[in-house]
C-alpha cells in the first residue's frame, strides 16, 4: 500500500471514529461532560497552587536570612532584648532588626488583623508614590500626631470604611480603660494585596501599646547575614549557644513555600483518583462494552472487508479524541474559572472563615509539565481501559452476522 494510501486510510479511520461519536451523541456527551468536569477540577488545583507558590517564591529573596524566635513550652513567646547584643556579636552577622508584630482581633467584625511595628518616618518619598496612596481624609493636611499613625492594607481599609472609621481607628481593649486612636495616613496599593490585605503598619511605639508588649521585649529578631554561605553555620551557632531559641533560615521558608500546597493538593487529588477509578469502571462496562447494535455493526464491517487492526484503531481513536477534547476543554474551563472569575468557588477552600481576604487576582502559571501531568492522570488510564473492549469488539466473527442475520 503506497504511503499516500496509508495516510488516506488513517484519515478514513479518523472520519469513521468521528462519525461514530456523532451518531451516538448521548453516550459521547455523557462521557465528555464527566471528563471535562474531572479534568477542570484537577487542573484548577494545579493552577491555584502553582500560582500561589509562584507568587510566594517571587519575594522570598527579600526575607531576612535568619528569623530568631524564643520558644517556651513549645510555644513562641516574646524575646528579650538581651539576646540582641549577643547575636549581633556573632561574626558574620551584618545586622539584627528586632521586630514588634502581632495580631489584633476585632470582635465587632470578627476580623483578625496583623499589626507590624515600623518607624513610618523612615519610609522614603518613592514609597509614598508607588506603594502607598494617601488617605483622602488625611490629604487635607489635618496634622496627624507623630506617634499614633499607621498605613493599612486595602482589605483593612475596606472594613474600616464600612464602620465609618476610615480616618482614625480606635483600638479598644477592656483592660486598657480607654481606647487608643490611631490615624490612618495611607493605604497600600492593590497590587500588593496578596501580601498586605490584613496588614496594619503601625508606628512602633503605638504597636507596643496595642500588643501590650513590655519594654525591653520584642516579638522576634530578624538577623541579616551578608555572606549566604554563612547562614547555616550562624543558625547552628545560635541554636548551640541558646537552646531555647529557634532559628528559621530563608531556605527553610523557601522549601516550606514550595511544599505548603503540595501536601494538601495531593490529598485532594488522591480523593479525586477514587472518583476517576469509579469513572473508568463506568466506562469499561457502559461505554467500552458494546451495545448489541454496535456489535452487529462491527460484524458487518468485518464481513465487508474491514481488517481487525482498522476496527481496533477506530475504537481506540474514538477514546483518544474524546479524552483529548475533554482535556483541552477542561483546561480552558478551569483557566477561565480561576483567572477570569478569580476562582470564585475554589478560593473558599483556601480562605476558610476569615473575613478579611484578598481578591485572589492570581498570575497564571502554566507549564507544559502541568498539561503532561493532567494527561497522565486522566487520558492515559482512560485509553488503557478502552483497549480491551475495543479488541473484544474487533474480533466479533462476521460469520455470526451472516448466520443469525437479524
Amino acid at each position, binding site marked *: 500500500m503506497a504511503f499516500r494510501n496509508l495516510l488516506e486510510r488513517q484519515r478514513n479511520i479518523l472520519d469513521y471514529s468521528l462519525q461514530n461519536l456523532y451518531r451516538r451523541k448521548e453516550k459521547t456527551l455523557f462521557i465528555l461532560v464527566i471528563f471535562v468536569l474531572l479534568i477542570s477540577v484537577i487542573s484548577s488545583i494545579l493552577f491555584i497552587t502553582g500560582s500561589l507558590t509562584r507568587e510566594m517564591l517571587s519575594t522570598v529573596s527579600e526575607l531576612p536570612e535568619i528569623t530568631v524566635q524564643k520558644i517556651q513550652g513549645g510555644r513562641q513567646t516574646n524575646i528579650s532584648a538581651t539576646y540582641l547584643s549577643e547575636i549581633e556579636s556573632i561574626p558574620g552577622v551584618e545586622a539584627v532588626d528586632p521586630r514588634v508584630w502581632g495580631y489584633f482581633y476585632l470582635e465587632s467584625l470578627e476580623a483578625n488583623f496583623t499589626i507590624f511595628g515600623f518607624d513610618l518616618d523612615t519610609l522614603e518619598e518613592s514609597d509614598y508614590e508607588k506603594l502607598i496612596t494617601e488617605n483622602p481624609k488625611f490629604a487635607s493636611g489635618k496634622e496627624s500626631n507623630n506617634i499614633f499613625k499607621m498605613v493599612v492594607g486595602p482589605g483593612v481599609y475596606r472594613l474600616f470604611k464600612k464602620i465609618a472609621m476610615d480616618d482614625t481607628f480606635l483600638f479598644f481593649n477592656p483592660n486598657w480603660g480607654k481606647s487608643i486612636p490611631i490615624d490612618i495616613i495611607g493605604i497600600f496599593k492593590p497590587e500588593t494585596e496578596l501580601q498586605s490585605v490584613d496588614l496594619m503598619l503601625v508606628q512602633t511605639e503605638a504597636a507596643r501599646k496595642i500588643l501590650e508588649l513590655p519594654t525591653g521585649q520584642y516579638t522576634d529578631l530578624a538577623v541579616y547575614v551578608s555572606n549566604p554561605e554563612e547562614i547555616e553555620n550562624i543558625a547552628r551557632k545560635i541554636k548551640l549557644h541558646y537552646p531555647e531559641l529557634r532559628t528559621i533560615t530563608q531556605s527553610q521558608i523557601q522549601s516550606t513555600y514550595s511544599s505548603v500546597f503540595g501536601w494538601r493538593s495531593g490529598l485532594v487529588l488522591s480523593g479525586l483518583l477514587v472518583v476517576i477509578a469509579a469513572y473508568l469502571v463506568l466506562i469499561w462496562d457502559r461505554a467500552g462494552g458494546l451495545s448489541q447494535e454496535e456489535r452487529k455493526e462491527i460484524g458487518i464491517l468485518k464481513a465487508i472487508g474491514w*481488517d481487525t487492526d482498522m476496527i481496533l484503531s477506530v475504537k481506540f481513536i474514538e477514546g483518544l479524541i474524546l479524552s483529548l477534547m475533554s482535556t483541552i476543554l477542561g483546561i480552558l474551563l478551569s483557566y477561565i474559572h480561576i483567572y477570569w472569575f478569580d476562582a470564585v468557588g475554589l478560593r473558599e477552600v483556601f480562605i476558610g472563615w476569615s473575613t478579611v481576604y484578598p481578591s485572589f487576582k492570581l498570575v497564571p502559571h502554566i507549564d507544559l509539565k502541568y498539561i503532561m501531568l493532567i494527561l497522565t492522570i486522566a487520558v492515559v488510564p482512560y485509553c488503557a481501559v478502552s483497549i480491551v473492549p475495543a479488541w473484544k469488539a474487533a474480533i466479533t466473527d462476521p460469520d455470526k452476522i451472516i448466520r443469525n*442475520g437479524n
Partner: protein
Amino acid sequence: MLTTDKVTKIYNQNLPNQVVAVKDASIKVDEGEVVVLQGPSGSGKTTLLSMIGCQTKPNRGEVIINENRVSKLPDRFLNTFKRENIGFIFQNYQLIPDINVIDNIMLPMLPSGIPYKERIVRAEALMRQFDLMKRRTFDVKNLSGGEQQRVAIARAMINQGKIILADEPTAHLDTKLTGEFLEMISDLKKHQYTVVISSHDNEIINHAVVTKIYTMKDGQVVS
C-alpha cells in the same frame, strides 16, 4: 478459479451442542460462471457460502481462490484478500441503518485508503447504474426493501472484486424485483463476474443464466 476440497465446518467443536454444518463438501466454480447452491434451509449452504467468502475458516479441508490457499491465510491477509476480490450480498442486506446511502456504499473502500475523489466517482457510477442517485443522502433505514437490496449490491461491487456471492438474495423480494435482480446477474455475467448464489427460489434455479447447480442436503453436496 474457485474450489473447495472436502471442506468441513463444525460449530462449538467437541462441545455438547456440537453441530456439523458442512461435511466434506467440494465444489468447483470457473471464471464467469453463475452457480447456484440449492437445498432446504439448514442444509449448510449458507455456511458453505460464507466459507467460500472467507467469512469463516473451515475446521478441515481447504478453500482455494485464484491459487491462494485462502483457509490457511492469517486473518490480516485474509481480510485484505476478501476486500479486493469478493463482494458479499447478505440475506437481510446488513447495511448500517443510520448512515446515508453513499457512505454505506463507500464503506468497503475505507480500509484500502483509496483517495476520496476516486471513491466518490466510483460510488456515483454504481448509484447511477442502480438509479439510487435521488436517494444519495437518505439514511438507509428510510429506504424500501428493493432499494436497500440495490444499495447492498452496489456495496458488494464497489471494490471491483470479480467474485460476487449472494445469500438468499430474493428471499424478501416480490416477482418484479426478483426479475430485476436476475437481469443484474446476467449483466454481471457479461462482464466476466463469477457469481455464486445460495437460494431455494425456483425462479432463480431454473433461470437460463445459471450454468451449474449444486444441491445440498444435511451439509453434503449431492450433485
